[in-house]
C-alpha cells in the first residue's frame, strides 16, 4: 500500500534537514515508537505500538535508516508482532522542500506491506490510521522545533 | 463445572478458553451442532442456553456453567421426532443439511416463544440462520406447518 503525505513546517528547510538528520530525535516523534536502540552503522532496532480499531499491535523489528545533509531521509525495515501474528514491511522516504524563507514542507512517501492479521484489516481503516499517525508525527515534529 | 445437556447432567473440566461448541462437539461427541462462519453470523452453531438461542461458537463453555443446554440432538423425544423436525422433512426445509441443526433449534425457540408466528415474525426471527440451499421458502413453509399442527 502506498501512502503519500505532505507536512507543512514553519521553519526554513535547512533547519528541517538538520532535524531529519538526527535519527533518534525523528524516531521520538513517531507516535508509538519505543525503545529505539542504535545497532551501529545505519541499523536500529525498536518497537512500534499501534492501536488499530479494537486491536493493539506491538511490532518489534529493525530498520536501516539513512539521512542526507540535503534533507532526505530513507528508511527500510520491518516489524513483527509474534503474539498476534502480524507484520509490517516498509520503505519510507521523507524529503524536505523549501516553500519560502521560513516555511518548508516534508514530503513523505511510504510503501508498506502488511502481513498476517494486519493484512486482513480493511484498507480504509489502515489509511485512516496512517493519516492519524502522520498528523501526530507532524505535531510532535513541530513541537520538537519550538522546543529547540 | 456442571451443566445439563439435552436433559443429561454433564460434568467437565473445560479449560477457560474452551468454547461451548467445542465442548459439545469434541468432548461430548455431539457433532450435530455445526461450525461454519465462526463469527456468530450464520447460525449453524445455534443451541438453546436456558431456553434462549445463542451462538455456541461465540459462547465460552464457562458461560454454560449450571445451565441447561439443548442441541439438535435433544429435539427429538427418543425416537419420536419433534414436530418441527417432521415439518422440515415433509416440506423440504433442508437440503445439504449443514445449517439444518441451527435452523431447527432456532425454529423450535421461535415456536416456544411464539406458537403462532406470522410469516413476518418467522422471517425476522430466522434471519440469523443463513441457508444457501433452500432460499428459505420451504423452511418458512415448514415453520408455518409445524405451528399450525401445534397451535
Amino acid at each position: 500500500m502506498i501512502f503519500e503525505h505532505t507536512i507543512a513546517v514553519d521553519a526554513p528547510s535547512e533547519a528541517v534537514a538538520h532535524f531529519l538528520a538526527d535519527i533518534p530525535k525523528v524516531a521520538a516523534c513517531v507516535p508509538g515508537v519505543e525503545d529505539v536502540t542504535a545497532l551501529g552503522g545505519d541499523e536500529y532496532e525498536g518497537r512500534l505500538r499501534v492501536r488499530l480499531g479494537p486491536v493493539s499491535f506491538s511490532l518489534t523489528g529493525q530498520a536501516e535508516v539513512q539521512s542526507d545533509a540535503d534533507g532526505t531521509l530513507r528508511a527500510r525495515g520491518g516489524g513483527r508482532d509474534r503474539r498476534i501474528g502480524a507484520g509490517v514491511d516498509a520503505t519510507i522516504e521523507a524529503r524536505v522542500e523549501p516553500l519560502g524563507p521560513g516555511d518548508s514542507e516534508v514530503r513523505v512517501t511510504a510503501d508498506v506491506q502488511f502481513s498476517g492479521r494486519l493484512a486482513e484489516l480493511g484498507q480504509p481503516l489502515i489509511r485512516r490510521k496512517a493519516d492519524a499517525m502522520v498528523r501526530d508525527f507532524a505535531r510532535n515534529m513541530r513541537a520538537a522545533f519550538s522546543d529547540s | 463445572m456442571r451443566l445439563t445437556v439435552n436433559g443429561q447432567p454433564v460434568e467437565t473440566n473445560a479449560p477457560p478458553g474452551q468454547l461451548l461448541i467445542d465442548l459439545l462437539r469434541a468432548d461430548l461427541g455431539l457433532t450435530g451442532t455445526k461450525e461454519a462462519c465462526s463469527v456468530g453470523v450464520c447460525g449453524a452453531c445455534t443451541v438453546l442456553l436456558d431456553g434462549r438461542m445463542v451462538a455456541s461458537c461465540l459462547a465460552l463453555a464457562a458461560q454454560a456453567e449450571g445451565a441447561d443446554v439443548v442441541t439438535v440432538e435433544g429435539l427429538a423425544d427418543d425416537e419420536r421426532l419433534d414436530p418441527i423436525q417432521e415439518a422440515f422433512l415433509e416440506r423440504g426445509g433442508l437440503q445439504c443439511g449443514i445449517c439444518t441443526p441451527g435452523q431447527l433449534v432456532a425454529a423450535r425457540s421461535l415456536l416456544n416463544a411464539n406458537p403462532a408466528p406470522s410469516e413476518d415474525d418467522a422471517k425476522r426471527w430466522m434471519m440469523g440462520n443463513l441457508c444457501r440451499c433452500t432460499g428459505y421458502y420451504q423452511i418458512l413453509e415448514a415453520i408455518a406447518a409445524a405451528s399450525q399442527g401445534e397451535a
Partner: protein
Amino acid sequence: MADYVEIGMPTPRVDGVAKVTGAARYVADQPIPGALSGALVHSTRSHARIVEIDTAEARALPGVHAVITGEDVGHYLYGRMIKDIPVLARGVVRYSGERVAAVAAETEEIARHAADLIEVTYEELPAVLDLDAALAPDAPVLHPDLNSYPGMRPLDEPSNAYRWTVDNRGDLDAGFAEADIIVEGVYETQRHHQAYLEPHASVVSFEDGRAHVWTNTKAPQNIRDDLAATVGISRDEIVLHHSHIGGDFGGKGTPMDLAVCYFLAQAAGRPVRMVADYIEEFMAGMPRHSTRTRLRTGVMRDGTIRAHHVQFFVNSGAYAGYKPAGVIGGAPRAAGPYHIPNTRIEAVHVYTNIVPGGHMRAPGSPQAVFALESHLDEVAGRLGMDPFEFRMRNLIDDGEETAWGQHFEHVRVKETLEAAADAAGYAEPRAPLVGRGIAIGDHGSGGGIGNAEVALEPGGRVVLGTAIFDQGSGTHTTLQQVVAEELRAPLHRIELQVWDTDGTVDDSGIGGSRASRVNTNVAYQAAQDARRKLVQLVAERLGEPEAAITLDGDEIRVEGREEVLRWPELLVEWEERVVGRAYIEDREPVRVTGFVAQVAEVEVDPETGELRVLGLTTAHDVGRVLNPVGHQGQINGGVVQGLGYALMEELAIEDGRVTTLSFGDYKIPTSFDIPELRTVLLESEDGVGPYAIKGIGETPNVPVAAAIANAVADAVGVRIADLPLTSEKVYRALADEASRSSRADAPESTE
C-alpha cells in the same frame, strides 16, 4: 403417459432423518482417533519471489509435528484439466492468499499459532490485478512456463491470455453492413463465492499401507485420481470414504487442501485433519469468475437481429486448474437462443494475480446472460420496441439452431417466456418507480460416467449402491425413487449404500446437472438388471422358461401355475441374493436443454437508489419432475443465490487482496430478504433418460441479475451494467442522469 407410482411424488429426503437429528456426519465430524490439526500459511503478496521461508520457530513450538513448504511436496502441479497449481507455492507466489506452508500440530490452536510464526521473506514482483493490466502489451507474464503445463493448449508465445477462442458463423461484417442500427455495450460481473455453509475440510490417515481420506467432494473418484497424481502414488493406494457434504454449488470438485493434508500426515506420521475457516474460504477458495463482456449487435428496424459479436473476457485469477475444462463456458450464452445468422463469439481467459476462479452453478452462464439480456433491452430501447416483443421476434423455434450454432431437441423457449410474462402480469400497468424486467437462460444436462447397483436381499430388503456423494441437491432421493418405481417396492425398503472409492473405478460424481441424465438412468438400468436376473434365477430354480415368468412388485407369477410367489420369501428359502449392476459412459453432446424465463418486478427509491424486489416469476421448461419437493427446492435456492449475485454479493478486492473475509462483510440473503416468488413449470414428455427429465440445479440462478437490471432500467431509466446492482450504483446513475438532463435543459437561458 406412463403410470408412475413413485416418480413425480413429493418425497422426503432419504438422508433427511439423519440430517434433522444431527446424526449425519460431515468431514469435520468424522471421529479419527489421534488426528492432528493442520493449518496453512497464506501469501500476503500478490506476486512475489519467495526468498526464504523460516520455519525454525514454528518447528520449535511444543506440540508441532510437521512443518512443510513447497520444497517438501514434490514437483507435481495439480488441476482438473490444466495442471498449473502447486500444492504449496514454490519459488513464487501468484496471488494474495496462495498456500505457502503448512503445519500439523496437536491442536488447532497450536497449529495456527505455529503458522503465524513462519516467516516468509518475499521479493516483490510486478503484479497484474485486473484484465486491463494483464492484457497490456508489456504486462509481466504470470506463467512463463505455461506451455509445459499438462492440459494446456500450447501458445506460440506465453501470454496471460492463455486461451483465446474465436467461433464464426455466417458473415459478421456483411451482417453489420446490412444492419440499420448497431448497438454496443460492455457488461461487467464480480467475483462471487459459492458460500456453501460447510467450509472445505480434509482428513488423511494412513492405515494398512493405504491412505484413508475424507474430504467434502462431489466427485470422489476424480478427487482420488487427482490426489494420486498430485502426490505421486497409484490410485489403488487411496480410499476416499463417504461423508455428507454441506453444500457445493460447483465449489466442491477439486482436491483443494487435500494434498497438503496428505503431505502433512505423511510428514507427521499421524492422521491429520484440516478444516478451513471462512476467512480462508473467501481469501483462497475458488469463486465464480469476474468477467467483462463486450457486445456489438446489428439489427434491422423491424427488430430482427442480423449480426452479433461477443467478446467474453474471463478473469481467471492466478490459476486455471480449478476449472474442469481449464476454461469456463458461457461465451455462447452471450449470443443466446436467438435466431442470428451472423455471429462471432470470442472467449478470452486471462491469468491475473488474484484468487483463482473455479466452478459455480452454471459456470459462465450468469455472467454471459447478464450481459446479453441487459444488452437486448438496450437494443430494444433503441428500436422503440418492448423487450418482450423484441425477444419473441428473435427467439428460436423448435428445429432452429441457436445463435452459437447448436441444435437442441424440443425447443420451447418462446412458450417459456410467454408463461413467465403471463404469470407475472408483465404487460399490466406499472406504478411509478416500479419496473419489470425479463431475462432468459438455459442450461443443458452434462454427460459423464455413472454406476449403480441394486441388490435384492432375502426377506425383501433392496440395497441401492451408488458412488454418488449427494452434496445436498437430493440425488440420493431421486435414485431411491427410481429403484422403488422400477421394483414397485415401497420407498422405505430401498436402503441406500454409498460406496467409498473402492466401490467402483470410475464415476463422474455430481456436477453439470449430470444427475438427471446419467445417474437416474444408471439406477434405472441397475434396477432393470436386478429384475432380469431375478427372473433368470426364478426360471432356473423352477425349471421354467424365462418368458413364462412375470414380476409385479414382490409378486412372481408363472404361466400356467395358480400360486403367486413372492421374491422376498423365495430368496430366503433359496439363500440367494440377486445383484443388478449398471455402468453408463455417456459422452454425447448435450441435445436437450432446459429453458428458464424470469420476470423481476422492482421498486426503486430514487433518493437512495435502494431497490426492492417486489416479486420474481420464474418459468421453467422442465420435462417430467421426479420429486416436486426437491425440484422446487432447487428452484428456490437457485433464485435466491441469483438474487444475492444480482444485488449484494461481491468478493471485494483491494490491492489484489480479498477484503470481504467474513459473512459479516460478504452478505448473502437472509430469510428476511427474499422476494415473493412465483414458479411456473412447463412439464412435458421431452426430457432425457427413461423418465424424460431435465436438470434444474443450475438454470434458476442464471437470469436473475439480468431480469433485475432490466427492471431497474424500466423503473427509473438507468442502466447498471456492472454487478452487483448496489443502491449506490443506482443512486449515482440517477444523479448522473439528472445532471445530464439539467445540462441539456440549461443552454436555452444562456442564448
